[in-house]
C-alpha cells in the first residue's frame, strides 16, 4: 500500500515575546493512499499547527520548523521546497478545507472565479473549459442550479453552502491529498451531517486521501478509518478507528472517551479529566499528561514515553505499556 504522506518527527515552535512555545514536539504518522485519517485532540494540542505545516501555511517567523520531514507521495519532502515550488503543489496536489466558511472565501470575488482560479493556474485550462468544470463541481457537491449560482458572491450563500463551495474549490484539481481542518465545527448539526455525507461520497468518487482534523469523536467514528490522538504537541496514541474506540490504551484517550456524551447512552456518569493541558512555553519533563493521569508512576515524571507497539498498527506512547509493566513488575 502506497503512502501518500509520511510525517517523521515533526517539531514546530513559535517565537513569542515570552519565549519559545513548542507547539508540535515530535509527531510521526503515515497516511495511506485513499485512506481517511482523523487527527483528534483538544485545543492547544497542536493538530492545527501540524496540518497547516503540511500545507506550509504558517508564516515563518514567528514559527520555525525545528526538525522533521514530510514526505509527500513518496517523492518529495515538503519541508525542503521553496515557496514557489510549494505554490505549485498547493491547490493542485494538496487541497485544504478550513473551519470557518464565513471567512475563508473572498467576499469580493464570485464563487465561479474562486473555483476557476485554481483550474486556470494549475491545469492551464481555458476560461470556458474551467467554467464548465466549475459548474460540474458545484453540482457534484450538491449545490442546486449551479449555472446561476456560479456568478454569485459568498454572502449570497448560507454557511452550509459556503462549506460545500470550499469543498468544490479544494477538489477542483483532483488533489491527491485533502486536508479538512474542523470542517463542520461551525455548522449546525443537520448541516454537519450533510457535509460529512458529502465528504464520504466524494472520497469514494474521486479517491483522494483525507486528513480530517476535529475534536468531535462522533464525526471521527462516522468518517475515519484511522485515528491519531494528540495531546500537548505529541501523539499519544494511533491506530484504526476500532482500535481507538474499542481498545484504547492511553489514559488520555480513555479519559476522553469516558468524558463525552453519547446520544444512545443511558444516564451514566460523566467522568471528566480533571485539570488542564500544560503550558507549551515550558513543557514538563517526562510525559505531558502525567499531571492529570490517574496512573502516574515515577518514571512518567522523569522520562517521556516513546511509542510502544500494541498490535498491527495500534501503538501508544505510555509507560504503562512498557514491556516491564507488561511483564508484571510492581
Amino acid at each position, binding site marked *: 500500500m502506497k503512502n501518500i504522506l509520511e510525517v517523521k518527527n515533526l517539531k514546530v515552535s513559535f517565537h*513569542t515575546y515570552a519565549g519559545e512555545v513548542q507547539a508540535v514536539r515530535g509527531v510521526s504518522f503515515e497516511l495511506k493512499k485513499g485512506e481517511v485519517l482523523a487527527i483528534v485532540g483538544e485545543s492547544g494540542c497542536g493538530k492545527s499547527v501540524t496540518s497547516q505545516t503540511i500545507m506550509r501555511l504558517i508564516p515563518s517567523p514567528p514559527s520555525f520548523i525545528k526538525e522533521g520531514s514530510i514526505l509527500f507521495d513518496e517523492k518529495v519532502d515538503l519541508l525542503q521546497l521553496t515557496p514557489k515550488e510549494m505554490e505549485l503543489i498547493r491547490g493542485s496536489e494538496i487541497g485544504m478545507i478550513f473551519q470557518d466558511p464565513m471567512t475563508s472565501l473572498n467576499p469580493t470575488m464570485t464563487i465561479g472565479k474562486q473555483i476557476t482560479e485554481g483550474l486556470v493556474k494549475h491545469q492551464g485550462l481555458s476560461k470556458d473549459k474551467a467554467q464548465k468544470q466549475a459548474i460540474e463541481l458545484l453540482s457534484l457537491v450538491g449545490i442546486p442550479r449551479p449555472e446561476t449560482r456560479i456568478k454569485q458572491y459568498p454572502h449570497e450563500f448560507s454557511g452550509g453552502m459556503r462549506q460545500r463551495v470550499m469543498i468544490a474549490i479544494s477538489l477542483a484539481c483532483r488533489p491527491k491529498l485533502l486536508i479538512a481542518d474542523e470542517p463542520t465545527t461551525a455548522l449546525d448539526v443537520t448541516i454537519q451531517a450533510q457535509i460529512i455525507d458529502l465528504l464520504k461520497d466524494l472520497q469514494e468518487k474521486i479517491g483522494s486521501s483525507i486528513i480530517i482534523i476535529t475534536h468531535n469523536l462522533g464525526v471521527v467514528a462516522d468518517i475515519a478509518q484511522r485515528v491519531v490522538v494528540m495531546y500537548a504537541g505529541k501523539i499519544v496514541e494511533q491506530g484504526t478507528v476500532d482500535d481507538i474506540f474499542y481498545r484504547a490504551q492511553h489514559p488520555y484517550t480513555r479519559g476522553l472517551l469516558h468524558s463525552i456524551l453519547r446520544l444512545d447512552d443511558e444516564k451514566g456518569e460523566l467522568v471528566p479529566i480533571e*485539570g488542564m493541558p500544560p503550558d507549551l512555553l515550558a513543557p514538563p519533563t517526562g510525559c505531558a499528561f502525567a*499531571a492529570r493521569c490517574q496512573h502516574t*508512576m515515577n518514571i512518567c515524571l522523569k522520562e517521556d514515553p516513546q511509542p510502544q507497539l500494541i498490535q498491527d498498527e495500534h501503538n501508544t506512547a505510555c509507560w504503562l505499556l512498557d514491556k516491564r509493566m507488561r511483564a508484571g513488575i510492581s
Partner: protein
Amino acid sequence: MQEITDNLFTPVPKQLNEQEKITRPSITYGQDAWRRLKRNKFAMAGFYFLIAITLLAIIGPYLQKNGYDVQHLTARNEMPNGSYWFGTDEFGRDLWVRLWWGTRISLFIGIMAALMDLFVGVLYGGISAYYGGKIDDIMQRFIEVVYSIPYLLITVLLIVMMGSGIWTIVFAYGITGWISMARLVRGQILSLKEQEYVLAATSLGASPWRIITKHLIPNALSFIIIQITFTIPQAIFTEAFLSFLGLGVKVPLASLGMLLSDGVGSMRVYPWRLLFPALVFSLMMVSFNLLGDGLRDALDPKFRK
C-alpha cells in the same frame, strides 16, 4: 539521559488541586501594557523626552535670575552666550527663560484640553452610547451642529467678547475640542455594550451609572488614553497657531506660538530666536505622537500572547 530502572515504575500519589494552580505570577493589564511599551524604543524616547521637557519647563526659568518680561535694553538681540543661554530678543528679554515659560503655558493648555476631554467628552459619549435610541440621536445631532461651527470663528468671537488671553483659549477649546473624544468613546461603548459581561451586570441588577463607570469606561480606557496623547499636541498646536496669528496669549506673556512668531520675523538676521522654540516645539509634537503610537500598540489586547 537517566538510566531507566525497574524501580521507577511505581505509582505516584495524586495531589488534588495541584491542577488548578496557576504558575505564572499575576500580572495586571497595566503591568503588561507597560512591559510592552518599554520594548518600543521610539515610544520610550518620546516618553523620556516629554519628561525632560516638563522638568525643564518647571525648573528652567529658576536657573536664570531674569524674569520672562524683564527687559535688558543694553543686551538686545544677543546671540547665545554665557549669561544669556539662548540669547535675547529685540527687547533684551532672556530667551531661555521665555522659552520655558512658553513651554509651561503650552503644557498648561494641553492639560486643560485633556481634562476637558476626560470630563466632558468621555461622559457625553458614554451617556449617549449607553442609552442609545432617541437620546443618542439628540446628543449626536447637537454635537454635529457644534462641530460644524469653525473653531477660529468661535475663538475670534470669544476674544472680542472676553479679550485675548490664556483663559479665552481654554474656553474656546472647551466648546469644541472635546467632540472627537466624545465620538470615539461613543463608538467604543456602542460595541462594548453588547459584550456579555455587560449583559451579566444588567441581569444582576446593576444601575446604568454602575455599568457605565465600572464596566464600559474602564474597558474603553485604553482608547481614551491614546486619544488624549493625540489631543494634547493638537491643543498645543492650535494655541501656537493662534498665537502665531496674534490671537493668542497677552503680551508680554510668552507662549511657544508667540516665540515662533517673533522668531520667524527675524529669521534671517537672528536665527537663534526661531531655532530654539522651533526645536522644542517640534520635538514635543513628535514625542507625543510617538508615545501615542506606542501606547496604541501596547494597550491593544489582541497583541498579547
